[in-house]
């Protein structure tokens, strides 16, 4: 089953997608990842992790309605 989630893009992901956020329907993180790469093929060149509701994703998981998914390229602080 598909849920509508909010996807946030940061760093290089924001540059590649040209948007800071959007809503996407997805049932789990793996299908969301595939959907994002289909929408933005340039992101296949980018290594990124995901956070679900502000927590780094350690393994693929199901998504709930209104979850907030952040697309996180490698951190560059310091």
């Amino acid at each position: 089953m598909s849920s509508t989630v909010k996807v946030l893009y940061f760093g290089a992901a924001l540059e590649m997608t040209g948007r800071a956020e959007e809503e996407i329907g997805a049932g789990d993180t793996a299908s969301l990842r595939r959907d994002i790469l289909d929408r933005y093929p340039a992101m296949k060149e980018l290594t990124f992790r995901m956070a679900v509701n502000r927590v780094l994703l350690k393994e693929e998981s199901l998504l709930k309605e209104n979850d907030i998914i952040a697309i996180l390229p490698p951190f560059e602080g310091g």
Partner: protein
Amino acid sequence: MKNRYLVGGPITPLLISELFTLGNDDAGAGAVSVFIGRVRDDEVNGHRVTAIEYSAYSDMAGNEVDEIVKTVKAAFSDVRKVIIVHSTGVVKAGETSLFIMVTAGHRDHATRACRHTLEMVKERLPVWKKEIY
């Protein structure tokens, strides 16, 4: 500061002097170790970096800082206070973008924990940069 971990623009000398006073109320903290990170005017493909624009996932940064502090305190039992502040927005070359301060009873844990905190900030703080030439 609205957000105690992220500050808009450079971390100014005035702010640094204020941050230095945190922990002054703890007379048991005999050692204070500080790391200050500044924007470097690197040359990239023949162009000189004049500034860096930092962006952050601020909603997540607070939790990550809390986790870093918790981890550092668990690893170094003598540590009493860990302060982490990172810039967002534009910071010019030569200006400060990262401030870390660790207070401890003694120098060994203060210095080692400060280095450990720095490595964890690099690894865990959701911050990105864009060079400006």
